């Protein structure tokens, strides 16, 4: 768990976890409200008290109450705990999809800011919420946030006829959500990587621990450095030069934050599976002969599109399927709408996540798609869940699940 907070006063400074540029961002917000229209949580809750500008306004008031000149002269004001709890709920209800930052007129990088505000509330003992609290202990004991045994990480889905090598320039990281919650997705990844024909390595299940994203996103950063160093050194020992992963959240933290926690540049490059597969198609190492006369619609995961800018490769991969008609959501690529699975909010605000997932399903059905294609294990698990007891149904398929199915015989 995070640092002890039992003795912290509500008047303690609120800025210890923010970088100078994030402090400037908080002052720069003009409360223009342009972000309200694109916020998926606003779309389903209609609650302005948890909107992005309101969260920034509240946090700014906390800073003023504790760090302003008046606070220095007259003493910092003790902030009402109820207000702090309300703020904590608001900041944890967010899916951290980053759509608000994408639309921000003053350029605030909210996908980076919200986790830091969460970290501050964790430091004060107000967060995380509900099941999120169990994640550090679960990761400490089992290596994954679900608390599931390491021996079950690969065994339920890993194809028996595929061998991974001990050392190779390419490694595949399955990720916890894929390995435990989205088996067809990770199985598809391995089948496609095998079909490319290049040998690849994987860490043994007890060594492939959490990438740290669930801890990062819920503001529980204490274990991050240890996890990152452990994983980087394990891959380095296997002479890895390219680490391939299909989970956008893992890819995001690997590409953006691992170097920070590792303390220097990573000894290998990070690639999303669609980048590797699109490259294989382009190089002629992979070819799909079977025709698929279907209308499919691809949903951009927030941490893949807005997070690291991977938007065209998944489409390039899908365009390699003969006969396919690729549809687009109204909000696609950098504008994509969160499916509800982001930011670990789904673990606490389940109804919001289901409502957002159903909006995604409904739009796919409205556009007369035969299949909804996803490229994220969290989206995969949540959208499947959202479809239960929902009047609208559509086959939900992971992108590599689809490709691996078409690569097979017959």
């Amino acid at each position, binding site marked *: 768990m995070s640092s002890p907070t039992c003795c912290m006063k509500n008047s303690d400074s609120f800025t210890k976890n923010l970088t100078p540029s994030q402090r400037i961002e908080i002052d720069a917000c003009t409360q223009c409200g342009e972000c309200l*229209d694109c916020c998926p949580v606003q779309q389903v809750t209609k609650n302005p008290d948890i909107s992005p500008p309101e969260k920034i306004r509240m946090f700014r008031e906390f800073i003023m109450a504790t760090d302003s000149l008046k606070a220095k002269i007259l003493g910092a004001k003790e902030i009402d705990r109820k207000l702090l709890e309300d703020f904590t709920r608001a900041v944890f209800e967010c899916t951290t999809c980053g759509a608000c930052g994408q*639309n921000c007129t003053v350029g605030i990088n909210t996908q980076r800011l919200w986790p830091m505000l969460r970290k501050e509330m964790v430091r004060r003992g107000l967060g995380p919420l509900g099941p999120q609290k169990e994640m550090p202990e679960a990761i400490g004991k089992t290596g994954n946030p679900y608390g599931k045994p390491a021996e079950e990480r690969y065994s339920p889905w890993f194809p028996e006829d595929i061998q991974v090598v001990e050392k190779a320039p390419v490694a595949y990281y399955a990720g916890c959500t894929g390995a435990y919650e989205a088996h067809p997705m990770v199985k598809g990844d391995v089948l496609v990587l095998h079909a490319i024909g290049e040998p690849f390595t994987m860490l043994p299940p007890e060594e492939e621990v959490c990438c740290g994203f669930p801890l990062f996103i819920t503001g529980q950063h204490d274990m991050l450095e240890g996890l990152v160093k452990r994983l980087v050194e394990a891959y380095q020992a296997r002479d890895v030069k390219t680490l391939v992963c299909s989970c956008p959240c893992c890819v995001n933290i690997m590409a*953006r934050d691992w170097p920070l926690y590792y303390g220097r540049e990573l000894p290998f490059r990070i690639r999303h599976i669609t980048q590797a597969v699109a490259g294989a198609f382009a190089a002629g190492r992979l070819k799909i002969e079977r025709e698929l006369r279907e209308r499919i619609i691809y949903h951009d995961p927030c941490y893949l599109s807005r997070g*690291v*800018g991977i938007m065209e490769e998944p489409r390039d991969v899908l365009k390699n399927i003969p006969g396919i008609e690729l549809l687009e959501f109204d909000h696609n690529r950098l504008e994509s709408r969160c499916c509800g699975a982001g930011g670990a909010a789904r673990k606490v605000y389940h109804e919001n996540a289901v409502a957002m997932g159903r909006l995604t399903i409904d739009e796919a059905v409205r556009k007369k798609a035969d299949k909804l294609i996803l490229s994220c294990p969290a989206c995969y698990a949540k959208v499947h869940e959202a479809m239960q007891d929902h009047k609208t149904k559509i086959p939900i398929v992971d992108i590599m699940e689809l490709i691996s199915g078409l690569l097979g015989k017959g």
Partner: protein
Amino acid sequence: MHPRPWILFWFFVICCHLYLDYSLYRRWKGWIRGMKTGFAMSRLKMPVVRIWLYEVFLQRQLFSLSVMRWLIHQCIFWGFISLTFLSLTKFILLLLSRISLDAGLHDFFSWGAGYPFTKLWGDFFGLILFAGCAGALARRFVLRPVETAHDQTDTFLTVYLLLMTLSGFMLESLRMALSPSDLDNYAFIGGIFMPARFGIVAGLGTWHAVTWIFHAFSGAAILAYLPHSKLLHSLLAPLVIALNAAEEEGRKDMYWPKTKQYRPIR
């Protein structure tokens, strides 16, 4: 013309400026109290500079969100910047002329061949600022777009800028009425506000002094109001854009600067 309270004005300007400096210093102290992060000047490479120029001067993000809002904001931005630039230039030239270092530019722009240029610049950008403020108010109270979230201070600031611009035009027209010149035609907006048009023919000196006091003091008061108003974003937004772009450049994300593509116009 009545004498103007220059001493009081300069005292007021100095007080407001000191207050602005102190407020910004306080904020700076607050900002640097955050987690320490390194900033290498080497990150200020071409993609960063390009994004900064696009976002700060052309406000591409706003353009993609709403063309009307972009137009209004551009009017206010360029009007405000250009008038501030004009005032600052005139002030600096005045100071330099006192120590004979202005190379004659003060006289050139104040009553020489450069005078029409000064008038055209002031009236044109005054008109732009006025149009921007009027547009912002019309959008807020007549068109009422759904996403607009604002409080009373927004309206106060917009009306404040609108009145400052109007008082600037009135001041110019009163000066033209009190001391006509052949070059007055260049003040194409000031001519519209000539007092005679409104039936004011007497007491022009008093009108001029009162208008000058309003215009000059409200202009100086902006300095003190800036750190507490949304005008602060005029300083902070360019800073945020530069810092975030430089951070991305340093991090070398997979697709930087492609991740800074903005959405198409709707």
